[in-house]
């Protein structure tokens, strides 16, 4: 009965001025997921890591026993509010574009004295351990909740990053001939029951950024975009991208710029 109503609603709006909204409600399964995703987001375990990340940011740590409060996320030394929504961006001190987590890792190395090799050894969360950069990224991301995504595209290197990121997104290779676009360059498709938003289109690109860092229901762990993209390459049957590498920052630039101007809700919940 309810299903019939939903379908009727969709039919009424299919020819309306909001094709995107229609595409989202078309699938009753997706509609059910959306409804309960909102319930889950109301109390998101991600908040536990926001608290932890804030502590890690503010407490002296690492071999140098200093906090990260001098870390420049692009808006000046120590400014966290709004920084995530404007990343990836170009950093003159490293001569390249960095996403939030890559920048945090950079600060942990340069300010706190950590070694990249140590941070990159097991950079992703497991059931029993959440690496510090993941918690810190969650905290930093939460400080941009409700803000419009505005990754900077003013510097030539930022424009170049977008172009290169786009090429990486569309690069078909590997034993299964996959590019990112094979799954995420199509409209209104799903894998199993999971919707696959088209990240190449501004209307649907937000889904590539929204909800990350995210509390992932599978395994009950906190993951950032670094993990998401890395694991996509695993599923793509590619070799493994280095943690916090430039390739990942470039790909994130492509995705985030496509979603520019849309509101970022902060850390989310993911399947």
């Amino acid at each position, binding site marked *: 009965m309810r299903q019939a109503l939903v379908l009727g609603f969709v039919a009424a709006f299919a020819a309306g001025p909001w094709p995107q909204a229609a595409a989202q409600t078309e699938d009753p399964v997706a509609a059910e997921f959306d409804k309960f995703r909102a319930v889950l987001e109301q109390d998101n375990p991600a908040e536990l890591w926001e608290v932890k990340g804030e502590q890690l940011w503010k407490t002296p740590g690492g071999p140098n026993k200093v906090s990260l409060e001098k870390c420049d996320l692009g808006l000046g030394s120590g400014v966290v509010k709004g920084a995530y929504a404007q990343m990836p961006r170009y950093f003159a001190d*490293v*001569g*390249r*574009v960095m996403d939030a987590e*890559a920048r945090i*890792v*950079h600060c942990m*190395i340069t300010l706190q004295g950590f*070694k*990249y*090799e140590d941070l990159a050894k097991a950079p992703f969360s497991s059931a029993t351990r959440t690496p510090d950069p993941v918690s810190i990224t969650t905290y930093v991301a939460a400080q941009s909740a409700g803000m419009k995504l505005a990754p900077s595209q003013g510097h030539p*290197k930022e424009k*170049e*990053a977008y*172009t*290169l990121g*786009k*090429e*990486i*997104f*569309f*690069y*078909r*290779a*590997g*034993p*299964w*001939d*996959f*590019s990112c*676009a*094979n*799954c995420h360059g*199509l409209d*209104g*498709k*799903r*894998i*199993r*029951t999971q919707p*696959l938003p088209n990240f*190449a289109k501004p209307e649907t690109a937000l889904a590539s950024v929204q909800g990350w860092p995210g509390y992932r229901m599978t395994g009950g762990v906190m993951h950032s975009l670094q993990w998401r993209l890395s694991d996509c*390459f*695993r*599923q793509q*049957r*590619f*070799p*493994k*991208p*280095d943690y*916090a*590498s*430039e*390739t*990942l920052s*470039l790909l994130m630039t492509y995705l985030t710029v496509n979603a520019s101007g849309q509101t970022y809700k902060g850390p989310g919940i993911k399947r």
Partner: protein
Amino acid sequence: MKLKTLALLAGGATILASCATGPGGSHGDALRLMQRDFKPVGIATMDRLKQDKVQAACNKYDDNPPKALADELQKEQYATVKWPADGKLLGDWKSGEKIAQRGRGMAWNDKPGKTSRGEPNGGSCYNCHQIGPATTSFGTIGPSLYQFGKLRGYGPDIQRYAYAKIYNAKAYSVCSGMPRFGHSGTLTEQQMKDLTALLMDPASPVNQ
């Protein structure tokens, strides 16, 4: 060690982008970055980043190459199909159903021909296709295969089409989003026969 860190964190300054056009444009610089930033893991070796003729053509033409080129490549791809020596194309649909359900294999922690759990590689078929009526959690990237044989007939030509499509999807549509399961060594001959049976055996639930 320190050099590596620097390369990872500040490397970009040294690589300049040429004027890339569309998604199909020059990816020389992007590829160079990927070759620097990706590392092999187990069976996922670095040569997986190298494109073959089909991948390169599809990339270059945004999955829509000129007809003459597409025809030529499709012919080449069709020629790669190795037909079973015993001439039989239909295996066991029950085993085919399991292969269609399984989505593992060929990734970082998997072994040659086997998943990390020691099962034979899966075909990931349900990820993209509706197949048997019992599974409602199917993907929609590919067309529905429900009643595949019932709708198309159970004759030898359709059998050969199904087998060859699984073996090398690019033989029929050169930029198809479907992997080349035989050509890439993902599935064995027996597995592909079992999948063909899942689609073509009149007794398979797919054809009920």
